[in-house]
């Protein structure tokens, strides 16, 4: 891996986004608006807002980064720029790390905005440190980037890429414990939810919500999400082929 090639790639991805201010605005503002909406949906039960709101702060970056990365990499594949880059002395890891870095930065801004709004304007009550919330949000964003990169290899068009969102994200959303505690699910589903990374993202957020200190469970959750993100990034790298049929 070459640091200056990684940085150049990240700068290029951010430059591309800068020519598209509407996408940036949507990425940054939609989570803020949704968390505000949620606050008033649960106007009568602030306790529910606390737990659902904290979970959503972890889920937003995952979903946005998944969508943005899958489309961006798909465009890279179909426009021929990927073939061109791989015919140049660019390592696959350089490209992937560049993407992860660019979208990771964006995710930090997005999560900071949404978390700050929730904590200070909407009175989301969190026992633990808001920095830990931000950390989980960042790990979730990396996981979203990794998943998006991976599924883009199986999509031949933007239509297909968007359809992977419900296919990959929705089952995790239903099983992650957002709607009902995971231990009250049908046992088979509970076992399945144990194997899905979003469950750990939401669980990590809830740990911060309830405990002042960094608990052992929180550390486990963060490690699982980070591990999954790395694993999927490696799988994603394997889908980038220098020689294609």
């Amino acid at each position: 891996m070459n640091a200056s090639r990684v940085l150049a790639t990240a700068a290029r991805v951010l430059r591309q986004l800068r020519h598209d201010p509407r996408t940036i605005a949507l990425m940054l503002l939609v989570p803020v608006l949704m968390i505000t909406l949620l606050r008033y949906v649960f106007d009568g039960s602030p306790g529910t807002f606390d737990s659902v709101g904290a979970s959503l702060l972890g889920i937003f970056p995952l979903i946005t980064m998944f969508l943005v990365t899958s489309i961006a990499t798909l465009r890279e594949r179909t426009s021929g720029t990927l073939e061109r880059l791989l015919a140049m002395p660019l390592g696959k890891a350089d490209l992937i790390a560049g993407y992860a870095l660019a979208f990771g930065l964006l995710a930090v801004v997005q999560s900071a905005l949404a978390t700050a709004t929730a904590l200070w304007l909407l009175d989301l009550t969190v026992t633990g440190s808001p920095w830990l919330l931000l950390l989980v949000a960042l790990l979730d964003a990396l996981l979203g980037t990794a998943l998006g990169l991976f599924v883009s290899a199986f999509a031949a068009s933007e239509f297909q890429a968007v359809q992977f969102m419900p296919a990959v994200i929705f089952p995790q959303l239903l099983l992650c414990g957002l709607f009902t505690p995971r231990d009250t699910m049908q046992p088979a589903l509970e076992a399945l939810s144990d194997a899905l990374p979003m469950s750990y993202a939401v669980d990590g957020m809830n740990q911060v919500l309830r405990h002042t200190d960094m608990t052992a469970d929180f550390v486990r959750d963060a490690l699982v999400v980070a591990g999954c993100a790395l694993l999927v990034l490696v799988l994603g790298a394997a889908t980038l082929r220098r020689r294609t049929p």
Partner: protein
Amino acid sequence: MVNIIGHAIEAHALSAVRGRRTVLRDLGFTVPRGQVTGLLGPSGCGKSTLMRAVVGTQAQVTGTLTVLGRPAGDASLRARIGYVTQAPSVYDDLTVRQNLDYFAAVLLPGRHRRDTRAEAVTRTLTDVDLTSHADALAGNLSGGQRSRVSLAVALLGTPELLVLDEPTVGLDPVLRRYLWDLFHRLADERGVTLLVSSHVMDEAERCHRLLLMRAGELLADDTPEALRRRNDTPTVEGAFLRLVDAATAADAADTLQETRR
């Protein structure tokens, strides 16, 4: 072993399969260094596949293919070959200069080479005559301008071998003449080897050597003069048509023989 005087590309028994179709069939040829070699043939005859094999992006290639003294696809070749695909492969949501800056950073990474990069970007912008459009978004350019941006990217790293897949298709005659002058300038002044595909036969006359292809096979590997003389025609187009007709007739005779058996 690197042979400076030897050939830029050497192929023996080169075949390529895409899906179940054999796209290249047992090709053997050489491409001399420092010259413009034209790769000609009708659409779908395997020109692009052959070029991708040379660049090392084509899967399922068999036989020997040596490029600049190394096996095709060797990692050390990636910085020495410039490749332009048929469809312009640039970022539409970046300006021309931002596109070149990025690819330059991939080819010549590191802070200490910042000046070299800036020089390369300025030089290639001049080469393809796009200096006045440097700050325009690539997506807002005309088709011909976008393909020149794509060409400029290939020129950035001062490659020893340029593989250009139909670089002049759909361009106006003035621009085509400009680009062919550029190709010859690159060969004469910088010693670059060029492999240029085309299906426009009048461009063939401007090449030092020609590879004529049909249905995945080589029909001829010669200079334009020799082709014209041997086939007794005033143009390369005439020579090509004569060779294609002969090959088609031979195919038909083969099929007929097989049906009789």
